[in-house]
């Protein structure tokens, strides 16, 4: 199978990596792709809760790596969507329980069965991130329009470039249009100007994200909130559809967003 193996990463914590992973996995599965989301954050597992699958965990990624079970036994099938699977990690282990070689082997084994393998990376630039990124080809970098998140994203992009991941694409999360218009928040064009990689999506700040995370149901399964639409658009762009960008900020610091997007995407 010609599969896409993608890491979702950010450098800084709390910018929405796990939410992005869960929502993109569900959106891709709804589009008929066979998808597995892997929780790469050993010791601080979250993806199972956000996807609402925590009560179904029997074996974890670490059990499979240790040989306590086969990888297939650690796969949890989502009951709501035919093609959606996840592999949870262990809460009681640490990042040292996995090596980069083992993550490469896990990703390679899954390539035969899945169209999309999405690895949720832990925050930071140490072993946890390096392991999560080891077996993937592509990367999605999540940032929020804040100076600290952008600086960390820049660091992560440099590391991903030196690991020869390609393409590396950007998601700007938690956009608040009214703050951008007032100049209280970095504009998307400013973020793109600093990070100089292709944009694949902009996700507005949306209370439904918090509700859905607590309810364990990714927004892209049933909701039509602004954030749900944004994640569905990103999933569509991942499979190669040419979806125009939703207008979120028309007045950002460094000029016209759409002029810049035209340049970036040749729209």
């Amino acid at each position: 199978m010609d599969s896409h193996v993608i890491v979702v990463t950010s450098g800084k914590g709390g910018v929405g990596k796990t939410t992005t992973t869960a929502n993109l996995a569900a959106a891709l599965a709804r589009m008929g792709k066979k998808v597995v989301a892997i929780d790469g954050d050993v010791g601080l597992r979250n993806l199972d809760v956000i996807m609402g699958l925590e009560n179904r965990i029997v074996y974890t990624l670490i059990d499979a790596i240790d040989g306590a079970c086969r990888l297939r036994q650690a796969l949890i099938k989502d009951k709501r969507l035919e093609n959606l699977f996840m592999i949870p990690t262990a809460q009681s282990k640490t990042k040292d329980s996995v090596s980069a070689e083992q993550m490469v082997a896990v990703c390679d084994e899954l390539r035969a069965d899945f169209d999309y393998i999405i690895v949720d990376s832990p925050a930071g630039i140490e072993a946890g991130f390096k392991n999560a990124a080891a077996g993937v080809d592509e990367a999605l970098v999540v940032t929020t329009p804040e100076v600290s998140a952008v600086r960390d994203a820049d660091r992560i992009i440099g590391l991903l470039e030196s690991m020869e991941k390609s393409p590396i694409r950007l998601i700007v999360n938690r956009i608040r249009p009214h703050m951008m218009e007032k100049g209280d928040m970095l504009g998307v064009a400013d973020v793109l100007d600093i990070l100089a990689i292709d944009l694949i999506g902009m996700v507005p700040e949306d209370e439904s994200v918090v509700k859905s995370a607590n309810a364990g149901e990714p927004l892209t399964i049933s909701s039509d909130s602004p954030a749900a639409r944004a994640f569905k658009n990103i999933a569509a762009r991942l499979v190669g559809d040419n979806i125009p960008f939703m207008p979120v900020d028309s007045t950002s610091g460094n000029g016209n967003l759409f002029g810049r997007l035209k340049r970036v995407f040749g729209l």
Partner: protein
Amino acid sequence: MIKIKGTADSMMRCIISEGMPAEELPAALGDIRLRGQRILRGAEVILDFGARKLDERLVSRILTDFVWPSEVRVVAWITYDAESQDNMKRAGFSTSEPVPATARAKLPGTAPSLVLERSLRSGQRVEHSGDVIIDGHVNDGAEVLSTGNITVLGRLNGLVHAGCEGDEGTIVIARSMEALQVRIGGRIGSLERGAQWWGKMVTVRVDDGSVLIDYWPALK
């Protein structure tokens, strides 16, 4: 891809493209070794890795598959990845551009200007004995250290230190000044976000012991 260029000081500069997968690199160097057996023997070589990260596995493969069998003398291991630079320095490898004899005669200890046609990302660092011109941006979290002057043709967000061995006669020029701190010699100049120079083209120099920032061109 690996390119070999001759330098003014009859050294060879081996430019290893950043896009080349690490696992292909030792084989590609091995190929160059076989094809260039006669010119390489005894040659002084600069290995230029761009912003590539050098880990122990890659370095040891390069040593065993290229450096030792081809009998070259590596005069510098150039990488802009700050962590790799520190690791290489700790192991006694030279990570700075070599100073050619022609330049040594004119200005002791000073290499020709380094022109870098790229932007530096957070966590990347350039150190150079001589002037540095960055044809790109210096992002927040990137560092440029130069014993001479520093010119940034793009946006300066990161940290620059001109005259980093103490020369306070050096200057910093930035096309768009957006850094909170600039260092020249032993002095540190601080700037506030949104100050009048923010985003403007400026020169920074030391005058009478203070770091002075000025518009370029200077207002009359």
